[in-house]
């Protein structure tokens, strides 16, 4: 028999669903806005339209229902965009691998009771979560790493920005994340000690215990941490912008490029035709120029797509129970 809901329960549910709905709209709206804006036709966004849910009809309607792919055309034929995009792919791919590589090694070591000074090491790690050194110190740290790289490569450390590829600096210097290491450490600690002992008796070396037992058994957490690393690399722009600055534009990730684009070609949200009448676009997009806002959103959409595509593939590893049944709980 179905239980009758009490009034208080009903009110609670209505309120909860109401806030959930608002939260969902807040989450989804930026996506809709970006997609709608990127497909809006030339000039459609300049008339003060601030709420965009569907593509805005303007003059250059190429799709026939008010939408235009012109912004994407622009993006796909823009070399700078592709360079930035490939830089982001590079930093994300190698950054994730590098971060995972030593996070796993570090987390494995920290998860072992037999490591000397275990509490001290763990404290050092957690300390960085409580107290950050601040922007200046971190900046100095990154640029000093650049100097070290240059010195290792046999070049003048003071000229590191011109002599070494900043992409590698971003990959290596920013690879550490205490939270992710702790996540991995806790997962490794959760693998029963007997499993490691069984592997040792079976003849596994320390490295084999890690690679053949711990890593496969912790796949779910490793996939999660990989996603965290990947997303932070993909979206990260602050340090790339600060450390690489204008002297290494060829190493910019797409986010830094986008920011630069927004600063150069628009007044943040509402671009005016006059702003880019003066630049090269005129030759390509006509004397009136081309609305930069759809272009900016086309870049945004392009930069979000890989994450959206990869997410479902990673998500299957989130499923619990990879390690179920190995030991009696």
């Amino acid at each position, binding site marked *: 028999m179905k239980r009758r809901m009490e009034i208080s329960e009903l009110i609670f549910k209505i309120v909860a669903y109401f806030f959930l709905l608002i939260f969902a709209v807040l989450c989804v709206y930026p996506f809709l806005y970006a997609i709608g804006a990127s497909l809006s036709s030339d000039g459609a966004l300049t008339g003060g339209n601030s709420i965009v849910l569907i593509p805005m009809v303007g003059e250059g309607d190429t799709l026939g229902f008010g939408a235009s792919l012109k912004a994407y055309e622009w993006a796909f034929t823009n070399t700078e965009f592709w360079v930035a995009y490939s830089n982001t792919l590079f930093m994300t791919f190698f950054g994730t691998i590098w971060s995972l590589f030593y996070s796993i090694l570090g987390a494995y070591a920290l998860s072992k009771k037999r490591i000397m000074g275990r509490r001290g090491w763990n404290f050092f790690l957690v300390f960085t979560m409580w107290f950050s050194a601040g922007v200046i110190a971190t900046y100095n740290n990154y640029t000093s790493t650049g100097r070290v790289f240059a010195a290792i490569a046999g070049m003048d450390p003071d000229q590191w920005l011109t002599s070494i590829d900043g992409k590698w600096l971003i990959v290596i210097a920013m690879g550490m994340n205490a939270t992710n290491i702790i996540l991995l450490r806790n997962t490794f600690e959760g693998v*029963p000690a*007997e*499993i490691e*002992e*069984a*592997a*040792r*008796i*079976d*003849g*596994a070396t320390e490295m*084999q215990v890690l690679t*053949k*037992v711990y890593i*496969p*058994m912790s*796949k779910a957490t490793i996939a999660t941490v990989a996603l965290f690393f990947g997303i932070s690399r993909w979206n990260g722009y602050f340090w790339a912008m600060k450390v690489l600055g204008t002297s290494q534009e060829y190493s910019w990730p797409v986010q830094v490029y986008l920011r630069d684009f927004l600063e150069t070609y628009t007044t943040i949200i509402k671009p005016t035709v006059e702003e880019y009448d003066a630049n090269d676009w005129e030759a390509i997009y006509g004397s009136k120029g081309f609305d930069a806002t759809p272009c900016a959103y086309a870049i945004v959409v392009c930069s979000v797509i890989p994450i959206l595509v990869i997410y479902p593939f990673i998500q299957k590893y989130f499923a619990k*129970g*990879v*390690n*179920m*049944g*190995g*030991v*009696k*709980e």
Partner: protein
Amino acid sequence: MPEVNLRHIDKIYDGGVQAVYDFDMDIHDGEFIVLVGPSGCGKSTTLRMVAGLEDITKGQLVIDGKDCTRMPPKDRDIAMVFQNYALYGHMTIYENMAFSLTLRKENKEVIHRKVMAAAEILDLKTQLNKKPRQLSGGQRQRVAMGRAIVRNPKLFLFDEPLSNLDAQLRGSMRRELMLLHKKLNATIMYVTHDQTEALTLADRIVCMSMGHVQQIGKPIELYENPANTFVATFIGLPPMNMFEGSISGGKFVGEDFEYPLTAEQKQLLKDYEGREVILGVRPENVTRDGSIPFRVDNNENLGMNTLVHGKVNGKKTVVCKFAEWCHYKYGDEISIGFEPDRMHFFDKETTKAIR
């Protein structure tokens, strides 16, 4: 020639706690040794020292003539089965069993042959492509044994392998283990706190308490001639009835009753005249033709025998095991006695058996 020698082994943990004191024994080729004792008695620690999972603080471990005291586990040529199975959850049963051989880079054909042979022995052939989580507890423990068997080690170590199984499965697995031991003619060290396992499986039992070896011997020796009061009460279910008292004028004088001694017992206890001793009698050695007043508390009819719980002179609780179905009620008064050649005497001071 002895296969495994444990020579005066001590284990002291970093915090200063001593878990094992002077463990000294030789294990012969093909012998099934069971270490038994209550929790915290040092039996698992001893096994783990043999496995190389714990350092040996003092003493020496020799396996097949080789000093293994400081050797890493993988070089000791041993295999271990854990209480919680310790299977690799991400691998199939086949991969679990083949893991040690794969690490040794053994030829694939050889691996296949050995895994199939072990699967045949353990009746796991149809389960090889499954993951551990798809198997029952008993099957998982068989996989753990299979993993040990494929290695063909010099010594098998079992750390309470049946403790996680239900009673029925435990019984059948116990019988399988006996058969396995016969088939493989393996040398086995087996840790349990279950005396049934110890009595049924062992060629020799090592009974431990508080880190000390209390007695090493064949199951029947421990049962019939316990070395001290600990072994006497630990081995046997229900435990041996113990009565404190003294020897006086050819009689055992307890707190609640007096009992005449036979000529043989008098001879045995001639040095104990006037001294305190402990008399031990197993429940099945209590008879109903004596002179000790006994009041029944309750009956436990088990089919082939009956456990009768009650009190002697209204104080001391005693358990009797009679070989037939009994119908006593609470408060029934009977007289009990002891089978004279089955009475055990222990020195009260040292708790050791008087022999």
